[in-house]
């Protein structure tokens, strides 16, 4: 997918370059051109995001880390078309985003499953919303549930499942209408540390098997490095790009990768951004 930057042993310091040299492959993905957001409030305009320029290639796992309130969630809403940018333009799959385009699957911190719908019926929600033929997608929904290890739980109600299982179901819901892009806003933030690690491995696998473009937002630097092809580091509010790092770790990655020198070096490097800024929460 990204032949441009297969980092090999003869480029040992490549991942420490402040801005990734991974070029736009030209394949449709997500492209932001001078996108900024300013909220109007009673006390005047509040800048949330400074103009951002970056691209996410198709099939790439792109992770954004940043302190609280740096406008990460705003970014996600703008890409899904729920919120218009104040300036600039966003291209998803080559088309400018002006309204909800349905070409995304979203996963939030909370699973947000509807308590009155069964797991299968929750996964089918996007199909209902988009008025797609139910019969055609039912098999796909069941297949996805199998992919995340929820086979046999189709008829259960959400509260009968653990937090991790609920989040898996919400990942299925984000994938059922076969969107090109998955947007994830701290998807595992509400899970305990052990479940979280396991979910990271799973998500890595799911992304590889489905080939989706993923934009994931997180507070956890190790999580970011573990999952990402590239990591975008954001500054405090109003958010701007502090750096974009390549993660030249081979895939598939197991949790052992966290002991890799490149991994630890990269984590440290990213952490420094926040310590010099004086905010990490």
């Amino acid at each position: 997918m990204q032949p441009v930057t297969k980092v090999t042993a003869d480029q040992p310091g490549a991942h420490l370059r402040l801005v990734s040299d991974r070029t736009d492959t030209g394949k449709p993905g997500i492209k932001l051109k001078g996108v900024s957001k300013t909220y109007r409030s009673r006390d005047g305009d509040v800048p949330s995001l400074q103009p951002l320029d970056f691209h996410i290639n198709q099939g790439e796992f792109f992770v954004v880390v940043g302190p609280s309130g740096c406008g990460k969630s705003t970014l996600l809403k703008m890409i899904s078309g729920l919120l218009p940018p104040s300036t600039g333009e966003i291209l998803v799959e080559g088309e400018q985003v002006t309204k909800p385009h349905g070409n995304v699957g979203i996963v939030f911190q909370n699973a947000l499953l509807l308590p009155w719908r069964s797991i299968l019926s929750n996964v089918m929600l996007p199909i209902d919303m988009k008025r797609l033929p139910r019969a055609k997608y039912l098999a796909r929904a069941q297949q996805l549930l199998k992919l995340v290890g929820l086979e046999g739980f189709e008829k259960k109600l959400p509260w009968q499942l653990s937090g991790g299982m609920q989040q898996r179901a919400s990942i299925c819901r984000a994938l059922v209408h076969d969107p090109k892009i998955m947007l994830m806003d701290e998807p595992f933030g509400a899970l305990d540390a052990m479940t979280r690690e396991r979910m990271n491995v799973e998500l890595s696998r799911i992304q590889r098997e489905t080939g989706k473009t993923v934009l994931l937002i997180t507070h956890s630097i190790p999580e970011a490095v573990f999952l990402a092809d590239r990591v975008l580091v954001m500054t405090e509010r109003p958010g701007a790009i502090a750096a974009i790092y390549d993660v030249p770790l081979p895939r598939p990655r197991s949790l052992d990768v966290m002991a890799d020198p490149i991994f630890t070096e990269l984590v440290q490097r990213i952490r420094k951004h926040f310590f010099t800024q004086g905010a990490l929460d």
Partner: protein
Amino acid sequence: MAEAKVESMVTKALNAAWVRPFLFLIFIVVAWDFAIRIFKIPAYQIPAPADVVAVLFNDWPELLRQAWPTTYATILGFLLSAAFGIPVAMLIAGSRTIESYIYPLLVFSQSVPKVAIAPLFVVWFGFGIIPKVIAAFLLGFFPVVVSAVQGFKSVDLDMIDLARAMQGSRFQVFCAVNLPHAMPAIFSGLKVSVTLAVVGAVVGEFVGSNSGLGYVMQRSIGTFDLPTMFAALVILALLGVILFWIVDRIERLVIPWHVSRREEIVFAS
């Protein structure tokens, strides 16, 4: 062995949901009877339970005939308060502008004592059923609106975003997310409303009516016929309980997924 079996049957019977309030009721009636005997309360102040039962037994065709208009007015008033309350709540929850215009006035109107303005309805609509229905409606309306507004407003905004990002129209999102989410709150409002509607109907009958249990009570107080008045009270209370129970049953059918019903689902599956 046989004794243990009997004992377990007794505990089982004691644990049935309806037995405990029933036992408590018997206790109250006995205490009532004793209090009258011990303190020598004259019958024109508080009638003895036996007298009330006697009236219930002897006059039940007449009481039942009078209960019918009250029931009718209560149900009509309740249905009206649901039919108007839920849409009004939708409007209030759906639009800040509408909320700012309507909600304060609604609260203000709620402070107007309905009993005081009930005679007005008699002036406007005569002695028929309409003043009773209006009184029942006015009392039942407010709890429905307040609960439903709270229900509609407590939806997780991320959930709405999620559904909208799937290109759901506003109406689709409302039907799939907002409305089911508000159902438990709406039902708790309806349960309060149905019991208040009984009160409203009786208030309507107090101020001007020639039928209904409220009218029976009014008339029997005038003649110091307290046993009849208490008999009417008992029937009114029964009416409230039955209507409440019906709403509760409907709630179970409509929202079997709700937190308060979870235990039952586990047992059923």
